[in-house]
């Protein structure tokens, strides 16, 4: 499947109008342009270039970036940890905040707090991420001076705390794309579970409500939530493109944008392969988490 995706991307991106940024400049003369096309090997047919690329890719070599002459694997390896940190933190925020919010809403169903939280999450889901990002920068970086506005670290003080401070705003902005959904799923799943017979039985047996909540209800309520989170991961990764652009976050999303705009064919293809691979791995991880939470699946 990944090979298929790479072929599709490679042929497709070669169809794009324009060409690598180095030849699509205003101040490049026609003879320079021809020399560069020859140097980059772009005068050869696309299928031949793809087969060569694939041969390398099967040995872990995703080719050489046309924009920087660096290996594509290296460029991606530079950026991948940043994207994973950002997406991972956003996911963490969404789980750590989203699930309790959903539980509170379920328990206090129909009360003002439930309505308020529903409204806030609905707004969170409806605000364009980049707009929220800009507002966050204006509030916390420009007006209040409490958090840095961009980048992963200050050049002068590259400490853990400094990196954490840089992570806060982009992670929050990105989390808004999935947190409301997590909360919503938890709420409805929890409501459903609270109506189940065994919860009522447990309650009527006189177990403390807190124990019932934690031991019985939440555990079962989480099963559909986990699968919902799994389905949200692709959206989260897609969301990094815009978030990284707003916060100058040096991750894969920004790289993808540069690669697409600069027609860096090997880099675009390499990114596609890596992103597809991440999607596959993420799906597997969710399946794994699923089996751990749901004992019935462990038998199967």
């Amino acid at each position, binding site marked *: 499947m990944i090979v298929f995706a790479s072929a599709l991307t490679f042929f497709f991106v070669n169809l794009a109008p324009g060409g690598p940024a180095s030849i699509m400049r205003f101040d490049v003369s026609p003879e320079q342009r021809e020399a560069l096309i020859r140097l980059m090997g772009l005068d050869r047919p696309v299928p031949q270039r793809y087969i060569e690329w694939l041969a390398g890719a099967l040995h872990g070599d995703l080719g050489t970036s046309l924009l920087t002459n660096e290996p594509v694997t290296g460029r991606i390896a530079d950026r991948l940890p940043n994207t994973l940190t950002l997406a991972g933190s956003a996911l963490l925020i969404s789980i750590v905040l989203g699930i309790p919010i959903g539980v509170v809403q379920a328990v206090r169903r129909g009360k003002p707090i439930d309505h308020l939280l529903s409204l806030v999450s609905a707004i969170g889901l409806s605000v364009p991420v980049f707009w929220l990002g800009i507002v966050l920068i204006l509030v916390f970086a420009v007006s209040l001076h409490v958090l840095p506005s961009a980048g992963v670290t200050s050049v002068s003080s590259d400490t853990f705390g400094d990196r954490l401070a840089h992570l806060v705003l982009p992670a929050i902005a990105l989390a808004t794309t999935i947190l409301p959904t997590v909360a919503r799923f938890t709420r409805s799943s929890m409501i459903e579970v609270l109506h189940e017979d065994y919860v009522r039985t447990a309650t009527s047996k006189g177990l403390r409500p807190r124990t019932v909540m934690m031991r019985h209800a939440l555990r079962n309520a989480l099963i559909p939530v986990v699968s919902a989170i799994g389905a949200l991961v692709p959206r989260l990764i897609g969301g990094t493109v815009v978030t990284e652009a707003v916060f*100058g976050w040096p991750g894969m999303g920004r790289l993808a944008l540069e690669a697409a705009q600069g027609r860096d064919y090997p880099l675009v293809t390499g990114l596609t392969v890596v992103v597809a691979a991440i999607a596959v791995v993420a799906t597997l991880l969710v399946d794994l988490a699923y089996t751990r939470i749901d004992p019935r699946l462990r038998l199967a």
Partner: protein
Amino acid sequence: MLFQVRHPFAIPALVIVGALLVSACTGAAQPGSSTSPSAQGAPVAGGTVTIPIGADPTLNPWSPNAFVESLFINRAIFEGLTKPGKDLAPAPDLAESWNTAADGLSWTFKLRSGVKWSDGNAFSADDVAFTFNDIVLKPDLGAQNRASYAAVKSVTVVDPNTVRFDLSRKFAALPSFLAYNSGILPKHILSSNPLTTASFNKGVPVSTGPFKVEKYTSGQSVSLVRNDNYFGPKPYLEKVVFTVVPDPNTQIAQALAGDVTIMILDNKAAVDRVKTANGLAVVSRPLVQYYWLALNQTDTRFTDVRVRQAFVHAIDRQAIIKSVESGYGSIANSPITPALAAYYDPSLASKYPYDQAKAKDLLAQAGWTPGPDGVLQKNGQPFKFTMDVGQRGVLEPVNALIQQDLKKVGVIAELNTMEWNAYIQKDVVRREYTATVNWWTYPSDPDVFPYYHSSAAGKGFNIPGYQDPKLDDLLVQGQSASDLDARKAVYKQLQAYTSETLPYLFLWYPQEIDVISTSLNGVPELGLRDAMHYLGEWWLAKK
């Protein structure tokens, strides 16, 4: 406050965007005014300067992948034979002096002695010969900027401290061109692979300037430290850090938060906000750059000079400068910019006032008369065409303004906005366009041969494809004139002639807005990218 709430539904918005308002209080400063940081006594050593750039740079002035964001660092670390003087005339850099042969067909440069590369190896004439003979003049490498050296046949090492440029035709502007993105590269490092060595271009290159690269972190920053092998006086600054910040608003946010020492304000709309910030000064600098509207000369409607003149009268260029440049710019009527003070002819500035009646009149003389719907027509054909808009900088709003201005005189221009890369291919490579707006930036010399000569029509930098023997003649005369007075005379004629014939429709000369921390001193009054040649003279006042 610029924003006032009149509508009840807007109230909830304020909860979300309250911060926007906090930062919206602006002073009503006059555009065009500039405040300079005051001198703060004698220079002191130490300190770090932080400068934001838009993307990862390529640390090699001749690499075709060295885009505009690379210029800052390349001009700071690599030195050319000459550099732009503080008056933009060529000043000594790696060369101490130069002169041209009596026939004008060669230039000889005397190099500075005792210069070392940052790795300790000696610099010599061989490096200069290598840079030109083995990089720039090699057609297969496609080196950036090589078109500027079309007249150079080869570079000969006369002795270890002397090089001679042999020319195929006279080239009076050579010393100026050598000051423009023409840094000399180390032969001992790059002889096998001069333009695509990633450990150099994207790592730690070997250079001769006062600073050298300490560390390159992709997507984040490039830091420079003093080059202990530098031949000149020890620079004051301890360190210079270039941070990669793609979003211009984020750059501004960082400046407002005090995280930036100096930067180019790409988003000129924010200038009033920046002016109110404590500890920041805003200055304007002239640029060797002009915006133009190219009308494809293969379209017979545009070969009539009256049509071109009418368009210039029809376009409210002052309004463009006001709205897209926040007032930082002046009206252009020739390719020679005010930054080239020795050559610029200010008397042409008022040649084409904004005058719709005059425009209609000229168009009528050219046979274009209003049809029933108000649209001009000739032989039953309406005056309609498409303008391609490249998606970059201010081009989109400028085109929107021009479209409306032309509409007022009965000319219909449809806008076709395109992604930059695709736009270049269509309009520049293939020349499949009717009209388009863009800009030229060129070396600090009035030799504009490549952009106007008929030999470049249809394929080179002569975008409109305008061909005119008289203009060709002036361009060649300019390259041949040896002394300054003779050149001035030729280029005065050239300005008058181009402003009359309008090979391109000249729009405006932009100015650069620089935001400078008030503690930073010693920055010459040049565009920031040019000021990078003087990084060794910058210093930070102690707080």
